């Protein structure tokens, strides 16, 4: 069983269902549109901001504000790519065709990750340029120090969120259960843990909090985060690796 055959097969699978198109389109549109909206609002409010906020002002990060919502569409993409197999019964046909479960799983993840990376990077660049256009005189340039890193990082962040969701979906199998856990976690729980001072120290090691550090260009003045942008991304990668490893072990052991 050549892995390249399985990758080709998984590409046919992913491009032949509607959910791929609508989840990824939603991620692109929401991230860019919400980023533009918040950038435009910030430009109006800039003169009313406190001196401290002005010092911490990060035009690059502002243009990625839409990701808080856009990432939810990436989560749906990641979950559906995997759990569609289970909810439809296709998994039995798939594993009968490719009984090497490791090859099956990692070919599927590789194809979905590649697609998410292309879409994520494109979204990140477009969100940056359109967001900066909205910011007018307060904008950052792509050539400014660390800005290019943040923009590429935005694409990586969206990709990793999707891959993390794939790993969780392999473990849980059910799309409703996976979404029911991941959506509230990333939309609410993580934000609450990260903003309440008592839990902040734990919250910042969660995948999204740590990973989003890569999109910051200006470090807020009272920020005491013990890791830098790449350190944060590495923490997120560890989460992703853990989710995939858990999924792989369960898929290997379970009856299909």
């Amino acid at each position, binding site marked *: *069983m*050549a892995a390249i*055959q*399985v990758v*080709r*097969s*998984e590409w*046919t*699978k992913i491009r*032949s*269902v*509607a*959910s791929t198109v609508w989840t990824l389109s939603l991620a692109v549109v929401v991230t860019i549109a919400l980023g533009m909206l918040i950038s435009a609002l910030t430009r109006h409010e800039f003169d009313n901001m406190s001196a401290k906020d002005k010092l911490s002002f990060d035009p690059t990060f502002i243009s990625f504000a839409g990701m808080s919502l856009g990432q939810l569409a990436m989560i749906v993409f990641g979950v559906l790519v995997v759990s*569609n*197999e289970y909810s*439809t*019964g*296709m*998994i*039995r*046909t*798939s*594993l*009968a*065709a*490719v*009984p*090497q479960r490791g090859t099956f799983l990692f070919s599927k993840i590789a194809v979905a990750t590649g697609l998410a990376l292309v879409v994520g990077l494109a979204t990140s660049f477009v969100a940056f340029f359109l967001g900066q256009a909205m910011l007018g005189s307060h904008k950052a340039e792509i050539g400014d120090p660390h800005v290019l890193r943040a923009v590429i990082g935005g694409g990586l962040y969206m990709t990793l969120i999707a891959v993390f969701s794939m790993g969780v979906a392999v473990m849980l199998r059910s799309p409703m259960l996976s979404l029911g856990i991941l959506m509230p976690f990333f939309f609410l729980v993580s934000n609450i843990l990260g903003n309440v001072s008592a839990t902040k120290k734990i919250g910042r090691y969660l995948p999204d909090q740590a990973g989003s550090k890569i999109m910051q260009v200006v470090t807020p003045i009272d920020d005491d985060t013990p890791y830098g942008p790449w350190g944060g991304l590495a923490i997120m990668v560890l989460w992703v690796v853990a989710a995939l490893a858990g999924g792989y072990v369960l898929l290997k052991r379970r*009856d*299909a």
Partner: protein
Amino acid sequence: MIQLEGLTKRYGEKVAVNNLTFTVRPGIVTGFLGPNGAGKSTTMRMMLGLDRPTAGDVRIDGQHYDHLKDPLKYIGALLDAKAMHGGRSAYNHLLCLAQSNGIPKSRVAEVLDTVGLTAVAKKKAKGFSLGMGQRLGIAGALLGDPRILMFDEPVNGLDPEGIHWIRNLMKSLAAQGRTVFVSSHLMSEMALTADHLVVIGQGRLLADTSMADFIEQNSRSYVRVRTPQRERLLDILHEAGVTVVESGSGALEVDGGKAEQIGELAAQHQIVLHELSPQQASLEEAFMQLTAESIEYHAHTDTPQDAPPARQQAWGDGWNRS
């Protein structure tokens, strides 16, 4: 060829498949028969490496399933008609299976034509009827032109034309020298298609025999006799050394008896006969008898509480009439 060696599957305390050993040979249709819940599907899933056996072994042409390179070229299986993504077109469903096993694209159009789905190739599978879904599943099984084919309850939910088509397909595949293994819970269906029979009940092997032997051994033939002079006839038959069973409705049943012999005896003693008819118990009854003890979910709807437990044969009779 498929070889099972002491195959066992336990779910906690419950034994779904219990120490199955048999071989499925090429060139014939082997029927895999058992009541609902006997463990047929579990056995088939283990054959395909989907479920892991608790003990024992299955080999496909001497190899474990997960060691097969491009397994669809060795063995094609229809497990259930809905094991596919409804949002994908029939063509793309088959294309992704073909690609995963290095089967040329041209083969997809060929099998679609074989099963008669060419016209709906671009349609999404969720719009398909049960019969069309079954055909698409069979197309997937045929895709790799495999030497072994496996069908789990292929005629379920099909119209007569579809059933006829599947029967002929299975026979022609076997005639080409392929191994064909097909499960069913209907003896009558198997009698029409299978050359060899493997019967299981509660996960245990009950019979592994050729269809012809099974019919010969299991179909009870008897002669039914009705007469107003019942006692006299009983005496005469007893003297002649013929064993008689009294059946419930006042008729007599003579096991293995010849109608001519009984008729002549009656004539000699001037006994009036109202009925003298040779009977053949159906294969369905033979199957019911074989599996009666192992049926997991008995239907006890018409048994009164205070009545003595019904004989197994009586239960079979009732089923046959309904």
